[in-house]
């Protein structure tokens, strides 16, 4: 097991390096970037204090050095937890991000749990009542969930919440807690607001999960050992839960790797519509105003979160399934 963990960690390193390169390229992509605009603006204003600022910025990003050195400079900063300077907020990126990354993690985690809790019984029912009315109905609902874009669903729900209840369901805490530090009251308030974005973000992932689990379980139920178990007189519930269900659970965990990017990606837009204090709205704002270091940091962190998520799911899978553990991670 330890060898496998080490192997996975070592494989992760080049991936993370490649991600940082891609992110850096994206930061450099816009032709008239925020930084040079900022500097020319500062220069236009002239005066001594400003030249110090310009020098500081040049120093910070190593602007007069060749591009690969700029990258190294930036990556070295990353390693030290220095994500660069946000021009829009005029503060270091790490300060802007603050608890936004944390809330993104909370929402993603809650959504994964939600997806499991909902997908599990529905898939179980669908697979055991194949082609019944219930199955068809649930399949259709699943398709609808897959097809409805999350942010549009959020929009529609906002509208109906407004029409029916006259309240706004946006935000993640009650207004009085907005700029308060974390407290028990705030925590409860977050929990009260959390379920709406979780349901909205979770719909498409849940639908996909149901379809995969249903297909897996149906494959498993056709295998001879299930027939044997039934023929030997095992009660139907036991013949279902004891082995086939366990076997078909593997993808549940393996899928976190696929689910996580989708969740983060979907939540970015939902967060914009529902004005959640997560990374999404800040990312979009940063992109709209070409505050590329801020945007790049978010992109980098989100990709990093995904890599960590995949790592966790792989380790869990290895822990559950000895076949993966002993083949040294050659599968997948």
């Amino acid at each position, binding site marked *: 097991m330890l060898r496998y963990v080490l192997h996975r960690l070592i494989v992760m390193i080049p991936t993370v390096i490649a991600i940082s390169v891609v992110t850096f390229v*994206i930061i450099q992509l816009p032709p008239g970037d925020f930084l040079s605009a900022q500097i020319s603006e500062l220069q236009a204003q002239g005066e001594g204090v400003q030249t110090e600022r310009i020098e500081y910025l040049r120093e910070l990003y190593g602007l007069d050095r060749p591009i690969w050195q700029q990258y190294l400079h930036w990556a070295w900063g990353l390693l030290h937890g220095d994500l660069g300077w946000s021009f829009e907020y005029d503060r270091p990126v790490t300060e802007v991000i603050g608890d936004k990354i944390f809330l993104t993690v909370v929402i993603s985690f809650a959504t994964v749990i939600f997806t499991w809790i909902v997908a599990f019984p529905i898939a179980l029912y669908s697979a055991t009542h194949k082609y019944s009315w219930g199955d068809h109905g649930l399949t259709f609902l699943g*398709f609808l969930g897959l097809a409805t874009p999350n942010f549009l669903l959020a*929009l529609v729900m906002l509208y109906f919440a407004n029409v029916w209840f006259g309240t706004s369901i946006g935000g993640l805490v009650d207004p009085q807690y907005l700029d308060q530090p974390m407290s028990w009251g705030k925590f409860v308030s977050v929990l009260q607001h959390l379920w709406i974005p979780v349901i909205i973000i979770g719909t498409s992932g849940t639908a996909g999960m149901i379809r995969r689990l249903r297909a897996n379980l149906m494959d498993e139920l056709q295998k001879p050992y299930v027939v044997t178990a039934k023929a030997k007189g095992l009660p139907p519930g036991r013949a279902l839960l004891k082995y086939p269900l366990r076997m078909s659970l593997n993808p549940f965990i393996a899928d976190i790797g696929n689910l996580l*990017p*989708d969740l983060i*990606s979907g939540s*970015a*837009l939902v967060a914009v519509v529902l004005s959640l204090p997560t990374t999404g709205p800040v990312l979009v704002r940063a992109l709209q105003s070409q505050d590329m270091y801020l945007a790049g940091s978010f*992109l980098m962190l989100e990709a990093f979160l995904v890599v960590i998520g995949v790592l966790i799911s792989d380790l869990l899978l290895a822990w559950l399934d000895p076949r993966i553990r002993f083949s040294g991670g050659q599968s997948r």
Partner: protein
Amino acid sequence: MAVEPRQPQETAGAQPVGNSEHWVDPEPWHVHREQPLTPEQERYYTASQWRLMWWRFKRHKVALASMWILALFYVVVAIAEVVAPYDAQTRDPLHIHAPPQPIHLFHEGRFVGPFTYGYQMTLDMTTLKRIYEPDRTVVQPLRFFCRGDDYRFWGQWAGDFHLVCPAEDGTFFLLGTDRLGRDMFSRILYGARVSLTVGLVGIAISFALGIILGGVSGYYGGWIDNIVQRLIEVIRSFPMIPLWLALSAALPPTWPPIWVYFGITLILGLVDWTGLARAVRSKVLSLREEEFAQAARLLGAKPRRIIGRHLVPSFMSHLIASATLSIPGMILGETALSFLGLGVRAPMTSWGVLLNDAQNVNVVAIYPWLMLPVVPVIIVVLAFNFLGDGLRDAADPYS
């Protein structure tokens, strides 16, 4: 092929061999002469692969219906100028944020054919909100096959022929108007042109990339495979929509709209090809060991020919099915980008651009019809999903 069943009594050319009792039939033996096929069986056995797939596809009724719905959408998109009652940019300053005008058939119990009632507008002086009431005295019969707004068909040929137009001096806002008094229905039709083609162009790019990179990676294996696999892993680590957003934010703001359109399709395709490449790779990996691939190799075919002519066609149907399933993602991607103002820009219209107006919940609460572009988005995405599902079931007709 049709083979005459053998008549045992009249074995024409049968000769006794030597003095023996054995009779040998000189005719070539054919199994179907012993067991004649019914015409249906024969049709089935001799059908081509694509015909078999079509038969199986037809059994999936929902997928079939989806196909027709999509066909209808694309036909409408092709002739949007003619179908739309207004031009996409026509502004009616007297009817800003007008609610949808339903079509009526009877006026005071009398049949007059399809018509709309006129609007009566009052301005709420406290909220400055325009309030429209249908004016039951003004009957505006619709005109059909008529001359209306001028347009340039496909931006090329001038014309003014429409399938349906409002009455002279009347209005026909089937789905209401937006903040500049432009007809929502017409704008949805025009917007469909961008929204529905973005997926097709994008999938063409991602298809090409997926087949080339996946094919090369699966065929050669080794370090090439390793590099491509790592690349796929890295791209997949980025959440798709934020990555799309970041890339499209990098499109220069000075570009003309048509360039932006192609830039966006390119971005959609560049990010999306990984799934397809993985599918191609795993298929090529297993198929390259088959005899026919080996035969081609022994005959001296180049890798490009083996991959392109021998391997890829044998799982083309699967590829088409999975490509169909990834079109909706692209349509949604474009919608999301434009919704946030990072995608297609005015004067181009797409469903996302239209939804951009519906971003604010206060606006939506007062003018709910601004949200209507959601409906075609969901219909099209659902239809593509069902179509892809049917295609996937039909992709392997021999199973």
